[in-house]
């Protein structure tokens, strides 16, 4: 209606897809990394680095693609640091990931305040210039389809890219030898050695891919969806990504579904918060007396409930988090 969405359902679907894009993108990267045996709990930090780098690069150059590219590159560079420490330095992956989170939090805050000082000294605005952010792109022709058009084909470029990436990665994992290599790396590195697949290089590349995805997801948050940077603006989304990869039992379909589910829950609670005022329904009216904190809690409680109902034990990739080559002790 007002946003160009015919119905509430259409809006909910559109917003879910839009808001879940960074989760999906970072999730796909993390999934590939974990399939090769590298668990990077620093994904939150990588996203945050993506946010700040995308914003500053885009603002400084005035080019949106520079921001996106720089974010992906920065994500990869940070992931390379992590992977180097973990794969060649043989450090514990969890500890290194936690350190990466802390590093990113401090670094992004520092960079942002330096950037603001810099702008203040030069008398510049810290706002993102008009052309430096991405806008929604309606796919010609398709965006006029009923329901599907406004939901699926009026999104950000990175959404389309993520969708393609999801399908592509699914295809790669299912039908190509590269997919076999990825899964073998995390499941049985001994087999990879016997097959002549370089274990550490493979894992390194996967970690880089994960970093690139996370960086781009950060860019999505800062220069696409909000055109802003804020301290700690990822707000725990990286941790949700980790959870969703487990939730999806290391498979791409369930992972994407999980991201959409979580995104939908958040949209739903925000819509509920609104409709309790705007709809003249006695039930909705009764909802007004519910403290808003319970609405904010809703996605997390619902996710817990879903897990409790659906969860089944899945061990995950066998070599997940283990160093290679393994030491005797």
């Amino acid at each position: 209606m007002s946003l160009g969405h015919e119905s509430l359902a259409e809006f909910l679907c559109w917003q879910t897809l839009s808001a879940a894009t960074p989760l999906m993108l970072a999730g796909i990267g993390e999934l590939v990394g974990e399939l090769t045996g590298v668990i990077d709990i620093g994904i939150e930090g990588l996203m945050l680095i993506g946010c700040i780098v995308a914003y500053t690069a885009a603002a400084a150059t005035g080019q949106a693609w520079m921001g996106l590219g720089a974010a992906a590159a920065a994500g990869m560079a940070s992931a390379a640091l992590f992977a180097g420490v973990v794969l060649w330095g043989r450090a514990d992956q969890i500890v290194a990931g936690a350190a990466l989170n802390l590093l990113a939090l401090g670094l992004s805050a520092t960079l942002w305040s330096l950037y603001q000082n810099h702008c203040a000294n030069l008398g510049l605005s810290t706002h993102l210039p008009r052309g430096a952010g991405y806008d929604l792109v309606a796919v010609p022709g398709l965006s006029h389809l009923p329901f599907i058009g406004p939901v699926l084909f009026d999104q950000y470029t990175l959404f389309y890219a993520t969708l393609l990436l999801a399908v592509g990665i699914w295809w790669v994992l299912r039908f190509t030898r590269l997919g076999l290599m990825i899964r073998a790396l995390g499941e049985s590195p001994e087999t990879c050695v016997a097959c002549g697949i370089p274990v550490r290089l493979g894992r390194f590349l996967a970690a880089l891919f994960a970093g690139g995805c996370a960086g781009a997801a950060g860019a999505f948050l800062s220069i696409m969806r909000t055109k802003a940077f804020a301290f700690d603006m990822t707000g725990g989304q990286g941790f949700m990504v980790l959870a969703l990869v487990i939730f999806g039992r290391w498979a791409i379909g369930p992972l994407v579904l999980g991201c959409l589910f979580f995104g939908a829950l958040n949209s739903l609670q925000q819509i509920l918060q609104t409709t309790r005022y705007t709809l003249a329904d006695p039930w909705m009216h009764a909802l007004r007396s519910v403290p808003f904190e319970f609405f904010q809690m809703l996605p997390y409680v619902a996710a817990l409930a879903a897990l409790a109902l659906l969860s089944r034990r899945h061990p995950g990739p066998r070599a997940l988090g283990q160093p290679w080559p393994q030491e005797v002790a």
Partner: protein
Amino acid sequence: MAAPQAWFLARRTGRGFDWIVTLAQAVAACALVLALVLTGLAVVGYSPVAIVTRWACGAAGGVYPLTSSMVEACPLLLTGLAAGLTFRAGVLNIGAQGQFLVGAVTAVGLTTRWLPAAAPLVAIPLAIAAGALAGGLWALLASVLERYRAVPVVLSTILLNFVALYLIRALLHGPLQAAGTAAPQSPLIPARDWLGVLIPLSSFHWGVPAAFLVAVGFWWFNTHTTWGFETFAGGLNPAAANLAGIPVRARQFLIMFLGGGCAGLAGVFQVLGVTHFMTASFGDYGYAGIAVALLGRLNPLGIALAAIFFGLLDVGSQRVQESTLALPQGVADVVKALVILFMLLLGAYLARRHLQVTSLPEAAPPASAGAAGPPGSGN
């Protein structure tokens, strides 16, 4: 998720705590990081000398700064224990933050609403016990979900953190809200229920030494009791431990409860000892505790040292900020992260060098049945 139990602990399980080595590593890592960060700051235009002096004096240059640092270290130590104890038992408890908040809010509720008229001799121990109990039960929730509904603890604790956050916000906005204000905050706890201050004109309450005693207690628990042995063995290899008759699941429940209790205790000490009231934004000691635990190598004494280190860093950086240097607060986080990374690298490097030196004689096959094959022989 069965995996973490094996992979998480596999590499940090030396005999006892080689504390001299670790300490040397820590010192070396700190020196390296300091050099790195100061160079970076100098490049950006800050004066390294001024920062270092200010930092060091602010964190440890006298009785008062030292007490500040210790007060800051207290919750870090307890939440670090919450993470460290459970990690050591093979349970990936990321939920110290939620447990911390739940503990704090319980203590506040007890002292301001539910038994405000009780004598302090009753109220304080009761608040401490109830806060720790609440934290422990909140942690147990994750264990129960894993036991009966197969929800991985990593996952449920992450989610429960958010649930706890909004829950305490709702409480502070509702039943626990102070009268006469729109602020989401509790009333002030009556002064007689505060933890006594040991050093006048500071916040050095007796919870701080108590926290260190708790750490020592858990060190003793880990190293000298059968339950400590059982949790460790169960964390390293649950299958083997189960087969040997160790009730792994029960010990995990126990340690989760104790860990959650520690985090809850951190919350209680913060409200009763430092802030004396509670607001909707109540610090993120729970998350910081994870880093502390990892830096302290999951050993309670190591965690105590790591907590002191973090406390010194935080208070020092605060003092740098308070001066006119206007150093962004983020720098402290960068320093912490780099120290952890460098320690990891140094530790791994040393371990590898000594592995090469010492592992070969081991592999020499004596003329006995079943001698080891040479390394890499795949036997």
